[in-house]
């Protein structure tokens, strides 16, 4: 078939892979955890425990244990929130938008990125609670009928956030689960031990793999993908409005929605690479996650990185062109003030480093890609930090300028959040199919007699 040869040429999946091998390789990943996995998991839980201790300490003492100083009232927590919501975006981009565009390089990495999406939203969702002055009253942000006759303020972008993030969590987890049903059934058929067998049987919802089931399933998956697609654009736009709707110089910009969406996909793709490279190596998945997969992502990073760089250029231009002294003062303060190192780290990591990806030799080199992806992760974290902290510390009133310094509690909670994310991820790797068995088989040639003999 002509169609098949074109797929073969790009080697999304190595030609040595057969139908039965896919099942074996993916289900092999769920084998009994090794000592390495267990020690990693215990270390992760220890970091998480420290993060939880920090949060408890903060709740007990009050928010004063953080580095907040007047007028910087949002800092690392909101930075983490925006960072993790951003990370969550590329998962749906890869699984939903690239599915609709029939981009085949998504096949072997989309499950990992979808899992990353769900866990990143779970991590992001913690931070609006952690940063509250009175976190035990968090449910006041949810509209529910109550005896006190109180209602929420729908004009507040924070309420839009509540809806955006909870919608995104719901849709992305349903999409994640629905995509896994046929694979879970394949695991169910393979495992023998009783507790696992029962759990996978329940999770597989009685999937038999009949053609009737498949015809409904593919349609449902298609509609879910179409439903999830607008969310990729809307959720981070709403998050950007937390800033764009405010009057703070450096926040009040119309470019924020597209800028944040591009930045979100940019950072998310980088984290997919950061996660996929070790998984590929540890579980020997070189035949499945090929260089072509990584190259596809690297090209998307080039595109989104260019959009982000464009925003970095437009922002100072508009602040100069506006003729507004606070706006221009903010721009100069970013580039030359006490926070300038962070600003230049951001520019270096997000605009200069991705230039390397223009060279085919570099973007097809897995090690180089891994290192570049780490740089982008750091750069994107600092981008959010710069937007939030630098803007707040240098506003309209010169009499109320102030400098923020991070405290150990904030660093502890940040480390704990990373541990929280990796805890879910480590569990996922050992319990659920990290590659899509069903979708990989879609692009394999149908098994024939020779394959059977082999």
């Amino acid at each position, binding site marked *: 078939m002509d169609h098949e040869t074109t797929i073969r040429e790009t080697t999304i999946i190595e030609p040595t892979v057969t139908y039965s091998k896919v099942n074996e390789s993916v289900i092999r990943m769920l084998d009994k955890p090794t000592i390495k996995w267990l020690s990693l998991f215990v270390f992760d839980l220890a970091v998480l425990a420290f993060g939880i201790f920090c949060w408890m300490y903060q709740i007990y003492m009050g928010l004063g244990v953080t580095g907040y100083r007047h007028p910087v009232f949002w800092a690392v927590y909101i930075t983490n929130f925006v960072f993790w919501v951003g990370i969550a975006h590329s998962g749906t981009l890869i699984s939903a938008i690239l599915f609709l565009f029939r981009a085949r390089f998504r096949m072997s990495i989309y499950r990992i990125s979808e899992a990353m999406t769900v866990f990143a939203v779970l991590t992001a969702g913690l931070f609006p609670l952690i940063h509250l*002055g009175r976190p035990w009253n968090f449910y*006041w942000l949810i509209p529910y009928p109550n005896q006190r006759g109180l209602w929420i303020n729908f004009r507040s972008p924070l309420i839009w956030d509540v809806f955006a993030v909870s919608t995104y969590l719901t849709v992305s987890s349903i999409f994640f689960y629905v995509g896994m049903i046929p694979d879970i059934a394949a695991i169910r058929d393979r495992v023998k031990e009783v507790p696992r067998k029962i759990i996978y049987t329940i999770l597989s919802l009685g999937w038999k793999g009949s053609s009737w089931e498949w015809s409904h399933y593919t349609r449902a998956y298609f509609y879910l993908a179409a439903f999830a697609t607008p969310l990729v654009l809307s959720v981070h736009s709403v998050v950007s409005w937390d800033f764009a*709707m*405010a009057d703070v110089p450096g926040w009040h910009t119309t470019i924020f929605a597209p800028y944040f969406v591009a930045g979100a996909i940019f950072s998310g793709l980088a984290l997919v690479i950061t996660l996929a490279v070790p998984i590929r190596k540890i579980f020997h998945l070189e035949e499945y996650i090929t260089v072509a997969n990584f190259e596809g992502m690297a090209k998307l990073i080039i595109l989104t990185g260019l959009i982000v760089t464009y925003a970095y250029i437009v922002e100072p231009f508009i602040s100069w062109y506006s003729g507004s002294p606070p706006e221009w003062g903010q721009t100069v303060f970013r580039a030359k003030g006490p926070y300038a190192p962070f600003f230049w780290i951001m520019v270096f990591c997000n605009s200069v480093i991705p230039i390397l990806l223009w060279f085919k030799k570099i973007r097809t080199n897995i090690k180089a890609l891994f290192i570049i992806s780490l740089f982008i992760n750091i750069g994107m974290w600092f981008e959010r930090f710069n937007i939030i902290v630098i803007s707040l510390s240098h506003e*309209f009133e010169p*009499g109320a300028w102030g400098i923020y310094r991070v405290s150990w509690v904030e660093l502890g909670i940040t480390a704990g959040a990373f541990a929280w994310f990796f805890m879910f991820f480590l569990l996922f790797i050992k319990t659920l199919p990290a590659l899509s068995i069903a979708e990989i088989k879609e692009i394999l040639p149908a098994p024939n007699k020779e394959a059977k003999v082999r």
Partner: protein
Amino acid sequence: MSWIRIERYFEEENQNDSNMRFIPMLCQHCDNAPCEPVCPVYATYHNPEGLNVMVYNRCVGTRYCSNNCVYKVRRFNWFTYRWPVPLNWQLNPDVTVRSKGVMEKCTFCVQRIRFGEDRAKDEGRDVRDGEIIPACAQTCPTKAIVFGDLKDPESEVSRLSKDERGYGVLSDLNTHPSITYLKKVKWDKV
């Protein structure tokens, strides 16, 4: 926590220069307050008298109001502050003691306003001009702060706010501050 701060601005680059301007900065009780729409739980809202009021027990502490306040006059309770005896005597019995995790700001001494209104109501009359004096105006030895009803065209504060020296701080941001500042006329420019 201080709800009013005195900002110092120097005329010249050299800070030894004695040509310094003071701006007492407190909540401007904006008619179009940027802090109000961003609060997710309506903890800060506009009351019918035109005051920008803060409901402490509704506040969950998102601190968005302070970020959006262009005057940066809001203060946050970072800890549970303790007032061991005899420091507890400095607490005003008419003012709520705020707990940790809530935002607070200048109220224009709302307790004094309520007291004055109630007394006028008991005596069956309107509030007289100058009858209600907030704490800052009371303590200012040079009487630089004047408080009153802006809607009453006869009041002292109305007369002063129409002065040609009057300006609102950052009023170009369309916040419509309630406080009018009177520009200092310099001796060499008269």
